[in-house]
């Protein structure tokens, strides 16, 4: 297998384009919402010349939080796809998002007493860090279980099958725990479909902390590149492969846990974004990882914008929008792939 090294100018161009995309998404996200705020006023508020709580306390953290969650999901998706050399690996399919959700829910049950808010429960808003840590343990546990059931990463179909099984079982457990409060079934669905509505500044801060902690993942692109050549080759390069693989799983799990603790389970961002960007920046993970982060950030901000405004001032669950956007696109990818084979 020959690795095509993208020429740097092309990568630079793609990166600049992605930055522009994120910027545009952020501007649109902040400018449009359930409540109309004239562009001039938006600008004044952002410059600190005037005050508008709807903008500064609700929309701005929600949009930024959405960008961070989207970026984290896409980055972990890209890492999983490289690690397992499997284009279908993503936080959803590896069971890790469900594991994180179970960890976060268990935390709410044990510490908060299960009450209806779930993603919006006071436990999460007051102690987002500890909820993220149990989510992290859940995500790592789920990935471990998936790998165990699949007997390693060698057989791709086994891996996907195991991931789906683990994900379903964990989702079942989460739903069971939440259903103990059966009057709140709608809130359960809101959590499993993702909800960015109440991401505030504490949530954004928590996301920033965990993204910074996972920053080394961006530097592990070289390892993922080596893995692309096959484990044998990678070993001959003298890399401590097993340790590095565990490290990648840990970083990805941390990103997933941080996202799930803040926004519930949002599907398809981690699957679609790396796919799309692979066409743009190529297979080199040193570039694909940061590109995925940017692409995921822009994608989720736009998806949440649709969720907020399509039926305004009512809202749709953001997971419904990402699935409706992501599903057909994924079908298209599969169709293209089949066409080429």
């Amino acid at each position, binding site marked *: 297998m020959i690795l095509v090294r993208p020429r740097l100018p092309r990568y630079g161009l793609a990166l600049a384009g992605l930055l522009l995309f994120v910027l545009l998404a952020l501007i649109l996200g902040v400018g449009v*919402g*359930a*409540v109309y705020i004239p562009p001039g006023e938006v600008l004044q508020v952002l410059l600190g010349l005037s005050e508008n*709580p*709807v903008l500064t*306390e*609700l*929309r701005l*953290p*929600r949009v930024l939080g959405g960008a961070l969650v989207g970026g984290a999901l896409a980055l972990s998706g890209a890492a999983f796809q490289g690690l397992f050399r499997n284009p279908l690996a993503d936080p959803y399919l590896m069971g890790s998002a469900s594991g994180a959700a179970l960890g976060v829910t268990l935390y709410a049950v044990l510490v908060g007493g299960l*009450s*209806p*808010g779930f993603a*919006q*429960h*006071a436990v999460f*808003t*007051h102690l987002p860090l500890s909820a993220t840590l149990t989510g992290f343990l859940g995500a790592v546990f789920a990935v471990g279980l998936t790998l165990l059931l699949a007997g390693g990463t060698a057989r791709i179909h086994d891996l996907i099958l195991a991931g789906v099984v683990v994900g379903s079982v964990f989702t079942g457990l989460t739903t069971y725990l939440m*259903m103990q409060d*059966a*009057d*709140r*079934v*709608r*809130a359960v669905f*809101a959590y499993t479909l993702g*909800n960015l*509505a*109440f*991401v*505030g*500044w504490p949530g954004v801060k928590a996301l920033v902390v965990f993204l910074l902690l996972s920053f080394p993942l961006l530097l592990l692109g070289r390892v993922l590149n080596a893995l692309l050549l096959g484990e044998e080759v990678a070993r001959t390069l003298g890399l401590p492969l097993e340790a590095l693989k565990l490290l990648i799983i840990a970083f990805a799990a941390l990103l997933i846990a941080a996202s799930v603790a803040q926004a519930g389970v949002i599907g398809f961002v981690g699957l679609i974004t790396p796919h799309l960007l692979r066409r743009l920046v190529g297979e080199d993970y040193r570039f694909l990882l940061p590109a995925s982060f940017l692409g995921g950030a822009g994608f989720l901000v736009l998806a949440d914008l649709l969720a*907020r405004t399509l039926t*305004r*001032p*009512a*809202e*749709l*669950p953001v997971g419904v929008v990402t699935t409706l956007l992501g599903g057909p696109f994924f079908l298209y990818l599969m169709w293209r792939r089949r066409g080429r084979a």
Partner: protein
Amino acid sequence: MRRILAVFAVFWALALAFPLTVKDDLGRTVSLKASPKRVITVLPSATETVCALGACGLLVATDDYSDFPEEVKRLPKVGGLYNPNPELIVSLKPDLVIASKYGRLYETLERAGLTVYVVKTETYEDIFRTVRALARILGREAAGERLVAQIQKEVYLEESRAAKAKIRPRVYYEIDPTPYTVGPDSFIGVLIQKARGANIIPRELGLFPKISPEFVVEKDPEVIVATYPDAEKTLKSRPGFGRIRAVREGRICVFTGGQDSLLSRPGPRVAQGLRLLADCFHK
């Protein structure tokens, strides 16, 4: 002789009333050969209505959530809307089951050969329609008319008490922290209006919309009503909600632990729910 005739007339009327064929709220035809003797209700508001009609003694079981009046608490529980236990229902051999239109429990029970009457209880008007309909199939039409008159009188009393209030506060009503709220045409929406509150939710959004938090902050409600545990803490910790007048002035009314049933069940105790709202809006 006259007394004997009167008794005879009552029996005659009862004999004439059954067999009875009616249409339920889904437009299904329901036939009863005789006045029901063993009734199961799978909806708390229906349980309350049956008991308010003086037919509590006919109940052999209810759903998990039926907890009023006190005497239904010791009856067997046959599950809830999402986890009904049809086998238990069938084994209790009811001659009438009163079920909600939500869930497909009625289809299962019907296949098992039971007589099922399906009710829709969503709007304020549904309360009175349901009272009359259940009174009819239970052979207690006079009691039904009396109950309708009584509920309307109680509601009128609360309504006229609330009408003395000079201001109509802007109200935001949260049924769960997703957040789902209530539109003006819903049962609770009508109660808010009768309690002289102004619902901030526009009619176009339907009965129970999931609302944008931005919209709530923008509308700046003067009173917030919530019907789930820990609501005050949840609302106060939300981004931007600290600016809302109701939160700043501490005018958050949380109804849980039984009080929420008065507001969530379109049944005979509706006036008590109305009173809770009126007291909350105008204290």
